[in-house]
């Protein structure tokens, strides 16, 4: 461990600059300590500290000249690793007329982050799990994270809202940085954590730290630990929260919460994002831009104009059950690092430690949580489409078409998966794959908005962007050798068509297949021509019902669940369901009443799919991401949530 006198801190800036880094660190602006580019020690918040309380943050003068005598302000380092606004790719019309999608990758100069607190190191490690250790790695985050030179500063004084001791994320910076630093009354102490940290340290001409200075550091850490007035009991928290989704405290906190999203903006780990298209007037150049989003925003949980979390209570519960609950099963670590920012910057001073303690004090039985899936990081840039070409269009009904698509190299698809189809400058939509045909594949689209309308209007030869495939697919292996009942509603038949084709192509494995299909009117029946071929297969039975019809319709009229009552429902069978959630709910009730076990029922869930790669947080359904854990769930996985409002 080495030491510099306070007056010698300029050497650190010189060394970082000499190694080619610009320095971003704490400085006073707009009555707060924020992270901005610094020229030298004079830019640091020398002699300032931050006074914090629920809903309160004030800078006050210290009675010394400490440069790191504050804890954390409204800024977080995530803004520099995962910027609030960022271009993901550009779509350009190339001279040959084809559309190209070019990823936009960071081109910032090498950057040193000065003054990273222990809780902030922990926060970066949390976001690493989100962006680097899921099914895909986010290359923009990865590049910035790899490049960033971290100078950590241990806290020898705790802030009034800090609780990192109880979340085991501080106050000492003991790993994860290039250079660890501490500020004692007379000196700065330094320790290198990496080779490049050692290179900077070598330039400081620092003297060895004394035994007394080392002792002061240890005492300071212990003092800070003892000063923390809050604790967050993390043991069993995910199970506790998911067992208490109806706790009265959620309604009580919703009375105070303004749903402003401040907590998510200042949180160093919150990662939800949105994306939109931007294009120039010529239409030749278009880009997708990612922006920070918040689970408190109304648009966050909206699908086709319906908000699945309409109340503030739903959204606050989503935030907190995710942050300290399902984060653990999703990423193997809690999303809370004990920095206290969400408490200070909440306009009404909601204190999550208080809310969690209140729930724990009067809790119902805990709920089991899903086991974390092992990460399988793919190396491609999941956020950039590639070009696909329309090779055919089949009109299925007045507002539904099937696009026959091809792309090079061909996609490897499983029935039940989906892709993200996009048109440059217009937008993107999650569309299920409705079949494959050699290397080509089919996607069936209902015209319900600007993007799906434009996709529906595509003609053979035209191009579009495609990402994916995503999602898990139907459990066709698990269903082998048993009866299969396919229950579809409306356009929900599309993701099941590939499964039905597979079942019919393997009659020895699937000797008994029954399709029960409901639509709005006879004109809305999809794949009618193909169905005639299915009907002639041995071992296949089919029943169709519509909600309304005129006298020309000779078939059934009534809700699809009526068809389920026509025949005994085998408890041995596997039931594959896709359709409106309400339809699936009543089907599940009928099947459960008939004694079909929960683990024989498979449901295709729908939530707002934005990135589809597990980065944006938009498609969360309780502890799951529909994009990577679904879209198909076994009923017992989601039984606690399925059919409930607000999730």
């Amino acid at each position, binding site marked *: 461990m080495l030491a510099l006198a306070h007056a010698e801190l300029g050497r650190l800036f010189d060394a970082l600059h000499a190694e080619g880094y610009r320095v971003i660190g704490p400085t006073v602006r707009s009555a707060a300590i924020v992270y901005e580019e610094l020229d030298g020690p004079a830019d640091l918040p020398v002699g300032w500290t931050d006074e914090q309380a629920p809903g309160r943050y004030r800078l006050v003068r210290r009675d010394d000249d400490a440069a790191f005598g504050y804890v954390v302000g409204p800024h977080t380092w995530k803004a520099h690793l995962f910027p609030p606004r960022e271009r993901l790719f550009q779509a350009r019309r190339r001279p040959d007329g084809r559309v190209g999608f070019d990823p936009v990758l960071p081109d910032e100069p090498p950057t040193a982050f000065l003054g990273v607190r222990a809780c902030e190191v922990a926060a970066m490690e949390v976001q690493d799990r989100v962006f680097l250790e899921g099914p895909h790695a986010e290359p923009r985050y990865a590049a910035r994270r790899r490049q960033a030179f971290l100078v950590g500063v241990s806290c020898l004084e705790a802030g009034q809202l800090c609780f990192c001791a109880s979340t085991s994320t501080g106050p000492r910076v003991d790993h994860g940085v290039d250079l660890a630093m501490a500020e004692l009354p007379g000196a700065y102490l330094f320790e290198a954590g990496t080779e490049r940290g050692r290179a900077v340290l070598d330039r400081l001409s620092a003297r060895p730290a004394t035994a007394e200075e080392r002792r002061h550091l240890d005492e300071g850490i212990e003092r800070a630990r003892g000063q923390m007035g809050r604790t967050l009991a993390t043991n069993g928290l995910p199970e506790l929260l998911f067992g208490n989704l109806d706790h009265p405290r959620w309604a009580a906190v919703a009375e105070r919460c303004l749903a402003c999203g401040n907590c998510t903006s200042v949180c160093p780990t919150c990662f939800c994002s949105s994306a939109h298209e931007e294009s120039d007037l010529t239409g030749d150049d278009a880009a997708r831009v990612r922006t920070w989003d918040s689970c408190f925003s109304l648009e966050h949980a909206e699908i086709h104009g319906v908000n699945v979390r309409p109340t503030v209570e739903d959204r606050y519960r989503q935030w907190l059950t995710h942050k300290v609950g399902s984060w653990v099963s999703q990423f193997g670590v809690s999303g809370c690092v004990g920095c206290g920012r969400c408490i200070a910057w909440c306009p009404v001073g909601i204190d999550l430690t208080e809310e969690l303690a209140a729930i724990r004090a009067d809790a119902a039985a805990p709920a089991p949580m899903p086991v974390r899936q092992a990460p399988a990081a793919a190396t491609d840039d999941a956020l950039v489409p590639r070009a696909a070409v329309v090779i055919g269009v089949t009109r299925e009904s007045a507002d539904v078409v099937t696009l026959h698509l091809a792309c090079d190299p061909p996609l490897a698809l499983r029935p039940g998966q989906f892709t993200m189809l996009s048109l440059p400058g217009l937008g993107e939509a999650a569309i299920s794959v409705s079949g494959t045909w050699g290397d080509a594949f089919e996607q069936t689209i209902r015209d319900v908005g600007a993007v799906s309308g434009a996709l529906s209007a595509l003609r053979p030869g035209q191009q579009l962007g495609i990402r994916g495939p995503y999602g898990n697919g139907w459990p066709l292996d698990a269903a082998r050798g048993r009866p299969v009942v396919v229950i579809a509603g409306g356009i929900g038949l599309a993701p099941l068509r590939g499964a039905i084709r597979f079942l019919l192509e393997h009659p020895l494995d699937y000797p008994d297949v029954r399709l029960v299909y409901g639509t709005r009117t006879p004109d809305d029946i999809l794949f009618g021509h193909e169905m005639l071929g299915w009907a002639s297969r041995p071992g296949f039975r089919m029943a169709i019902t519509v909600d309304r019809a005129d006298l020309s319709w000779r078939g059934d009229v009534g809700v699809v669940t009526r068809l389920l009552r026509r025949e005994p429902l085998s408890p041995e069978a596997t039931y594959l369901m896709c*359709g409106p959630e309400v339809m699936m709910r009543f089907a599940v009730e009928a099947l459960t009443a008939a004694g079909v076990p929960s683990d024989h029922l498979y449901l295709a869930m729908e939530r707002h799919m934005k990135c589809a790669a597990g980065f944006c947080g938009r498609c969360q359904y309780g502890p799951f991401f529909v994009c990577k854990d679904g879209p198909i769930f076994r009923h017992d996985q989601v039984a606690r949530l399925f059919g409930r409002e607000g999730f």
Partner: protein
Amino acid sequence: MSDASVLRVAGLDAATITGLLARLPAFSGLDDAERAAVAAIARVEQVPAGTTLFRESEPADDLRFLLDGHLTLGMRFGGRGEVIVLSLGPGDIVGWTALLGGTWTATARAVAPSTLLRLSGAELAALCERDHDIGYALTRRLFAAVALRLHDTRLQLLDMFAREAR
């Protein structure tokens, strides 16, 4: 109010009809003697496809149960002709209004050759009056069937396929 095309099934004895009753959920709450009492006022009829069994707004007479075949219930929609609101399959009750009296709420047509068990509404009402045990058991079952149909109608009202996009 039945069409002339209705064919009576002759020669079915009381035991056969009692056996048919036993397979219908509406009569599962009755014992053998009670079912025999119902069988005495029941007959089986077969109708070809295209038969109109009864028409909306006309007086409701007999209660039927579809044993085999396929019926539709339709309602007049002014200028838009008749709209089918429900189809009925084997085991379904047809014309529960007959138990209450009044007029038919829909028009029932056979879209396939169908076999029905038919009970005179007036005789059934009289039987239920005479034997309240039969009346209670039957009313409970019919009420359950009507409640299920109400529930299904509500689901239809939700128009759940109207806005989904997947």
